[in-house]
């Protein structure tokens, strides 16, 4: 199936490894992502915080271009902030008076908008656990993974339409399909990391992200698994600041779910961008490799025993 694809600005910079691993995983599953030609910024938090019509106009330009692409799979984006803005704009523009006010800000009146989903939602709905498990050849063994969603993916519920608004489980499903035996049931999975206040109000963000990190540490996380560039930045790039705020000494790698899927699919390391992480994923990789070696040894032993048995 063909999909129109909106990478989002952070994919060009701070979350380049998310962009790269998303493409790699989609490639491996035979998914064609066609970038929205000459896409522009959705306006993110600043635009909707300033004015709803301005935010919707910035989204409408992209939604109109994507609508002309004729991709049967609709529009996909990996970024929950872009997703939230694009979906909210689509939702609000169902109101004729609002649409009129937004169209007045555009060069040309907006066209037909496609259905917009996250890449995560597409993986779950269009592929599902079984076909992803079939593609998996290096199970993610021997590590405890803590899925963390943040706020935007599932709320507001009536617009996002993605799992339970307070207990989404998409990443758990994908990780289990990738052979994980140990996914934590993480109670802070939908708490806010402090979002874009990291720059103007660092202390606030550090305390919120710090709380998530320290609970993940209590849950024995070998890694936190995320699907949002802003969550990843606050938990990884700002991990020292956040850990200091709550007196946490352990460091926990924070990986995108697509990076872990790529590992489970056995994709080439450079396509997953693990070197971009600030907290090294090396201990996690070593632990998984050791567990896989042990599992293989066990299989050989059982097979050997079976052979000697008369």
């Amino acid at each position, binding site marked *: 199936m063909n999909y129109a694809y909106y990478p989002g600005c952070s994919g060009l910079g701070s979350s*380049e490894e998310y962009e790269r691993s998303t493409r790699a995983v989609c490639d491996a599953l035979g998914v064609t992502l066609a970038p929205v030609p000459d896409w522009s910024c959705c306006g993110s938090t600043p635009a909707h915080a300033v004015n709803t019509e301005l935010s919707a106009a910035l989204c409408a330009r992209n939604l109109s271009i994507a609508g002309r692409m004729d991709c049967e799979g609709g529009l996909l984006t990996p970024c929950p902030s872009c997703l939230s803005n694009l979906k909210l704009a689509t939702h609000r523009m169902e109101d004729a008076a609002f649409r009129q006010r937004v169209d007045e800000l555009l060069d040309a009146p907006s066209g037909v908008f496609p259905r917009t989903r996250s890449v995560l939602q597409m993986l779950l709905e269009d592929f599902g656990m079984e076909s992803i498990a079939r593609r998996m050849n290096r199970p993610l063994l021997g590590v405890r993974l803590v899925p963390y969603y943040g706020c935007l993916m599932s709320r507001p519920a009536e617009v996002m339409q993605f799992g339970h608004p307070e207990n989404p489980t998409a990443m758990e499903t994908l990780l289990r399909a990738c052979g994980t035996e140990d996914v934590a049931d993480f109670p802070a999975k939908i708490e*806010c990391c402090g979002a874009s206040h990291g720059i103007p109000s660092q202390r606030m963000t550090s305390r919120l992200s710090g709380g998530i990190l320290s609970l993940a540490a209590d849950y024995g996380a070998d890694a936190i698994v995320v699907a949002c560039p802003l969550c990843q930045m606050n938990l990884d790039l700002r991990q020292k600041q956040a850990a200091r705020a709550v007196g946490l000494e352990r460091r926990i790698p924070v990986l995108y779910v697509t990076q872990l899927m790529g590992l489970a699919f056995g994709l080439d390391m450079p396509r997953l961008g693990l*070197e971009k992480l600030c907290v090294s994923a090396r201990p996690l990789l070593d632990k998984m490799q050791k567990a896989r070696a042990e599992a293989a040894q066990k299989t050989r032993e059982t097979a050997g025993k079976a052979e000697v048995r008369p």
Partner: protein
Amino acid sequence: MESIPLHNACDPAFARQVEQESGQSLAACYQCGNCTAGCPAGFVYDMQANQIIRGVQLGLKERVLSSQSLWYCLSCSTCSQRCPNNIAVAEVMESLRHMARREGHISAAPINAFWLSFLATVRRFGRSYELGVMALYKLRSGRLFGDLDIAYPALSRGKLGFLPHVVEGHGEVGRIFERYKARCDKEGVKP
């Protein structure tokens, strides 16, 4: 305890305006406090979410619109999700933030400086330009030395591009901002 003279502080038109802009029926709020209990930003608020709603019901326009809480709100929608009366509290906060801006109440200047710096790069290039946002924000807020500890890890891992990505249709994006500004001027409100 502070007392508020309701007979002369109350502006009933304000409550109606907030209801209309946010599309929420605020009379339904019975002050259970679920919104405040779930709010991750409450620890920095000067008025809690339920107090904001009560303030709007009472028509305390100046008091509500000058609250810093409007700016510290993270738009996480936990409040809306947990309201037993289906009030989208986050929508109310957003509408109040817009009203505060239009009337010139900027109660958290650094947050506003960050938002405007971000939008300035989108207006100019069509996409946000992270390094440019940081530079503009430092100039606008005067906080020159903030976040220096993350500059090295970000730059050494190529997480901050040195050059902006300029969209071909950046003129088109710039015109969205120009029309928005012109409309604010025409309607006599601050952009």
